[in-house]
């Protein structure tokens, strides 16, 4: 152990000091990522008025592109066709399960309650979030990510356009404009399929089914469930744009960014669903049986 200029021995770190340093570096990286996300989201939201004022045409273009895609149904298609397809799948699934469970107790026609409550409150918003993540989200990560690695985002900036409102803001607004009509389609498709399956395949009494279905389908619930779908779509679009905007590492990098974005948005949709269920209906939701 040598002596330093002051005559005191050098401070020699213990063998475990490396662990501390590594942990600190890892924590630093985490915090940096959190900061990056916060700044990104804040910028997108803060610059939304600019998006509305300056990039109205681009926003409409994005909306049409997100809704219909290149005109095919699933691959390269828009979110609307996926929303309808998932509406059919979810309506059928709820009908089969609810009928099978309730009918053993002789309450088959009460499927109407499950149809209006489970579909409207949970299932339809969840599949809407998933459809947005799978169709719009991955497309956005792909587009923005390949713009980033082809240095097109820097080019956008060089042309005097603000990249965040022009690239991300327009997509956020365009996506949210598709939510209300698209979500209404999902909900209606799932209700229609449910009704069709229960009445025509299971030969339930139509009047009883309708009675319970309508009784538990309140306007407030419809508004809340649309609100849920809107929040999911906004979260999904933000997450996917974030991962695309900061993509790096060539072609594989964009693909991997897409994967990370899908994972993050699936978790976000589920967690937001739980949180919003509790916020909107409380920990102990109450239902009024009017007879």
């Amino acid at each position, binding site marked *: 152990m040598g002596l330093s200029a002051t005559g005191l021995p050098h401070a020699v770190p213990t063998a475990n000091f490396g662990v501390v340093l590594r942990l600190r570096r890892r924590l630093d990286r985490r915090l940096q990522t959190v900061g990056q996300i916060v700044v990104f989201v804040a910028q997108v939201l803060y610059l939304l008025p600019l998006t509305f004022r300056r990039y109205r045409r681009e926003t409409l273009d994005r909306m049409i592109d997100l809704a219909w895609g290149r005109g095919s149904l699933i*691959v390269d298609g828009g979110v609307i066709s996926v929303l309808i397809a*998932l509406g059919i*799948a979810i309506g059928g699934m709820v009908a089969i399960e609810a009928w099978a469970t309730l009918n053993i107790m002789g309450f088959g026609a009460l499927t109407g309650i499950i149809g209006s409550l489970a579909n409207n409150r949970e299932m339809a918003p969840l*599949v809407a979030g998933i459809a947005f993540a799978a169709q719009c989200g*991955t497309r956005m990560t792909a587009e923005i990510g390949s713009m980033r690695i082809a240095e097109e985002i820097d080019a956008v900036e060089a042309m005097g356009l603000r990249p965040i409102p022009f690239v991300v803001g327009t997509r956020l607004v365009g996506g949210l404009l598709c939510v209300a009509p698209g979500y209404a389609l999902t909900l209606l498709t799932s209700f229609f399929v449910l009704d069709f399956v229960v009445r025509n395949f299971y030969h339930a009494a139509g009047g009883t089914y309708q009675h319970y279905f309508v009784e538990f389908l309140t306007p407030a619930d419809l508004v809340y469930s649309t609100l849920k779908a809107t929040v999911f779509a906004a979260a999904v679009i933000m997450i996917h744009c974030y991962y695309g905007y900061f993509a790096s590492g*060539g*072609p594989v990098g964009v693909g991997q960014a897409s994967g990370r974005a*899908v994972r993050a948005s699936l978790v976000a949709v589920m967690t937001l669903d739980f949180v919003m269920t509790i916020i909107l209906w409380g920990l102990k939701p109450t239902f009024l049986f009017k007879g």
Partner: protein
Amino acid sequence: MRPVNAIATVGRAARLLVEVLRFSITDALSGRLPVGELVNQAWLLYKVTALPAVLMAIPFGGMVAVQISGLINQVGANSLVGAASGVGIVRQGAPITAGLLMGGAAASAIASDLGARAIRDELDALRVMGVDPVRHLIVPRFLALIVLAPILCAVIIASSVVASFLLSLNVSDVAPGTYWSSFGAFAKMVDVWFAIGKAVVFGAIVGIVSSLRGMEAKGGPRGVADAVSASVVLNVTGILFANLVITQVETMFFPMRVA
């Protein structure tokens, strides 16, 4: 011609499936299966899906418990909360969640890897060297997904049943014994087998779709990204429709009974 193209894609997927199955069986019998690569891939895919699986399962279980117990408390039958959680989680929630994670996270890992190889012409180079990419790249990934699916499904069932149990215990005042006895009365072993079977089918869909999309990627970085997007959306739609079909088959041949 769009419909013709769509049918051609289905045909190529079917041919890929047949090839993958043939190589899996013959190589397994002759002991030439690339086990090391298979384990590597399975571990890689497990790493990208396990944590999100738990993070998705817990809110799902909680959501089921909250909504169902609210409805059931109203008619004074809160012993049925366990039953509803059993049906909701084991029969539908867990396999769909596992499928979505495989179709989202695992699929993008597979499609971006194979897609990058495709646009760099590595797959053609392999073919020139007499190495079949289906046999050496796709079979291990496909089998890795098949191995992963039941594990993921089990992780999700366990964590979301625990979440729903704790929530109905503490929030909805259901007695623990009541919860488990009604859970057991409705959820049968058959349901667990079907859940695992569903997850395996979803894994197979994900394996074939993402490998096909990845192998057929073209046109630079954008091509890889498009392959990933296409495989994710195809997987999600395919999984939900496969789920519908399997659910119908299950209720037809194993109708629900109360024990």
